[in-house]
């Protein structure tokens, strides 16, 4: 049995052979050993396997940290000791290297192409296939730029104190990227978009393969990029034309939530892989310990699907809340206590006035510069003819009203009983609505939302429709109001609401919105159907509530 020194010698011979630097005499020695010592054949193979695992064909990562200058001091000291005791290893003269690499240069690995393989295959009809496959399968050893950072928000990357700018290109290779915090959008050259949420560590393997070591990502993959593959430590997900979110946690568990389309999920050990097709609305968890695949609830709101750093908007698949916008939020943030907008001053107010007298219209359309998604507000009164309802001059043939209003346009969520206001609560089936945001429009008010501004804030998204549930309510059950929905001055919905009682219940609304629509206007006018003296509280308490008023969104990726 050879001692350690002899073992090192054997390993050195195998290393020399592996690196192509073995001399004839050394090859004869290696051959002699393998012929006469049968256990050395096993060792030879195990060393070759070790080289393979450490190479790009293997799956074992060596490095835990980047090389820094201090390593050289350590290594130099170590080498000084070792070199004194090293036996001479004869290295044959090699032809000079064509290119000199230094530690300060880029760490590109030059691929080695045999002329035979390249030239002969270029002559064949299958050459194109070869080149595609070649580029694909060796792209990990190249640093090929395959993706662009199109946007980032509060993003901090490891190894740099500054944000990477839009347009930064990302390349394949062994480099791992660490997004310490924030959001980043990578658009691959094949049009796939990957939204990363830090902290996340990932590696771009090829032009259509990414490995997520941990963190969250959301992928939207168009048809032309079908086959895009996502690897985690425990699973592989192959896109089949879909959108999905992947979370890999620090413990190694993987979570897949498929939002659209379908994927192929592969998990398990090398010798026992399981493959499943996972479709829309389905989510799976892959255990790091057992590789078992289990069902979990699909959470469409778990992942950041789009964001806009300029407007500070983050979208997780929710619809845009009109109540949130009226409350001065971005449409995705929650509404809290009662808050509103004066329809005459166009000013944002943080509390709703409890008024003792009626307030009158100023008979103009009032712009709202404070809120980017609201075009304007007004008090509708058609006594003098059609009224302006958008900043571009769209008009509405409004009926005659009293020209008075008692409350601001308001929004809230939760119980209204705890708040200082005369607005009655929304009660349906004996229960106050507290879990949904509510937009309150009391006669006579109107508000116009700027759909173009909304689209510009999230260009990745499309506005599809408005939906809400409307209910007129007051404790006296003596409502007399009309509700209108208009798009660019065109009436899309009108409803005469007189004396709503509990039997009629809430009214659902759904209005389609096309990409060319610019403005959405909501108006409540008093009915003026009864004489003043027949109503105990004329014009007051004509509240119309829109429960959970939303603009339905969808992403436009892949179009």
């Amino acid at each position, binding site marked *: 049995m050879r001692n350690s020194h002899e073992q090192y010698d054997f390993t050195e011979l195998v*290393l020399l052979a592996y*690196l192509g630097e073995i001399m004839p005499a050394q090859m004869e020695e290696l051959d002699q050993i393998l012929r006469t010592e049968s256990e050395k054949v096993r060792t030879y*193979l195990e060393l070759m396997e*070790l080289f393979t*695992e450490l*190479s790009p064909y293997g799956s074992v990562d060596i490095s835990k940290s980047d090389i820094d200058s201090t390593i050289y001091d350590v290594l*130099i000291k170590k080498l000084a000791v070792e070199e004194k005791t090293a036996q001479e290893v004869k290295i044959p003269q090699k032809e000079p290297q064509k290119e000199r690499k230094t530690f300060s240069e880029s760490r590109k*690995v030059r691929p*080695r192409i045999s002329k035979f393989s390249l030239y002969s295959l270029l002559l064949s009809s299958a050459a194109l296939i070869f080149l595609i496959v070649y580029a694909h399968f060796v792209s990990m050893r190249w640093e090929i730029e395959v993706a662009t950072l199109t946007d980032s928000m509060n993003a901090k990357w490891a190894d740099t104190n500054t944000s990477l700018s839009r347009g930064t290109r990302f390349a394949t290779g062994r480099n791992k990227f660490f997004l310490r915090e924030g959001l980043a959008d990578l658009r691959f050259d094949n049009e796939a978009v990957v939204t990363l949420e830090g902290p996340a560590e990932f590696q771009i393997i090829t032009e259509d393969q990414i490995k997520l070591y941990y963190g969250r990502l959301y992928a939207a993959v168009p048809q032309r990029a079908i086959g895009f593959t996502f690897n985690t430590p425990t699973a592989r997900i192959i896109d089949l034309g879909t959108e999905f979110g992947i979370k890999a946690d620090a413990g190694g568990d993987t979570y897949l939530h498929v939002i659209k389309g379908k994927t192929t999920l592969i998990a398990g050990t090398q010798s026992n892989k399981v493959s499943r097709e996972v479709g829309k609305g389905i989510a799976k968890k892959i255990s790091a310990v057992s590789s078992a695949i289990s069902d979990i609830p699909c959470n469409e709101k778990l992942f950041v699907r789009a964001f806009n750093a300029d407007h500070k908007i983050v979208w997780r698949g929710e619809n845009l809340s009109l109540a949130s916008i009226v409350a001065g939020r971005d449409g995705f943030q929650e509404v809290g206590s009662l808050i509103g907008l004066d329809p005459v001053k166009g000013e944002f107010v943080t509390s709703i006035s409890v008024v003792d007298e009626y307030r009158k219209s100023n008979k103009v359309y009032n712009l709202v510069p404070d809120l980017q998604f609201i075009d304007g507000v007004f008090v509708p009164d058609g006594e003098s003819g059609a009224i302006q309802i958008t900043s571009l001059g769209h008009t509405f043939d409004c009926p005659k009203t009293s020209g008075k209003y008692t409350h601001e346009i308001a929004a809230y969520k939760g119980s209204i009983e705890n708040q200082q206001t005369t607005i009655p609560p929304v009660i349906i089936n004996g229960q106050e609505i507290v879990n949904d945001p509510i937009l309150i429009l009391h006669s006579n008010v109107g508000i116009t939302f700027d759909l173009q501004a909304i689209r510009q804030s999230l260009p990745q998204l499309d506005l599809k429709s408005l939906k809400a549930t409307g209910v007129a309510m007051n404790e006296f059950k003596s409502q007399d109001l009309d509700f209108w929905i208009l798009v660019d001055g065109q009436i899309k919905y009108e409803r005469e609401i007189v004396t709503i009682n509990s039997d009629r219940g809430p009214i659902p609304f759904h209005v389609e919105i096309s990409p060319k629509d610019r403005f959405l206007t909501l108006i409540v006018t008093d009915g003026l159907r009864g004489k003043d003296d027949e109503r105990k509280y004329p014009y007051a308490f004509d509240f119309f509530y829109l429960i959970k008023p939303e603009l339905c969104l969808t992403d436009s990726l892949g179009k």
Partner: protein
Amino acid sequence: MAISKKIDFMELYSKEQKKIYLFILSMVHRQTDADDIMQQTAAEMWRMFDRFEEGTNFAAWGITIAKYRIMDYRKKQVKNRLFLSEDVYQKVVQELQTVFPSSDKRKNALRGCLSKLKESDRKMLTMHYESGFSYRQIAEGLRTSKSGIYKIMARIHTHLHECIKRTLLIWETNA
């Protein structure tokens, strides 16, 4: 080729490429030549994928194709390369059948053994395998001799090899 076929090929190839590469490397022992032959083999496997029978052994099929590539390579390289004798290659082929099945366990053991390496040793491996520096370049960068680097690398690889063997023995004993 239909997209679903492409996905099937990618899936199988990703899973089995290591076995195919190990076979090639074991038979030609020189890394650069093994890389070339692997690329040729991959291209041919892709071209011939329609003939692959689903459910059969993809790695074995790939190795069969690789054997022909290796034969071509040897015919062309007989003057430029050094080879082991034929009976040694036959022993290598036989022994590979016993190496393949336990490959996963050795890979897992390797991970553990890497984590136990001294930082300086791991960084030596990183410089060569992950950053792509040759031994000569490492030697130049560290201002030392290439033979010294060979010595160090031989020691590190031997250490890893023995650590893997010990780890597997412990696992077998405790199983």
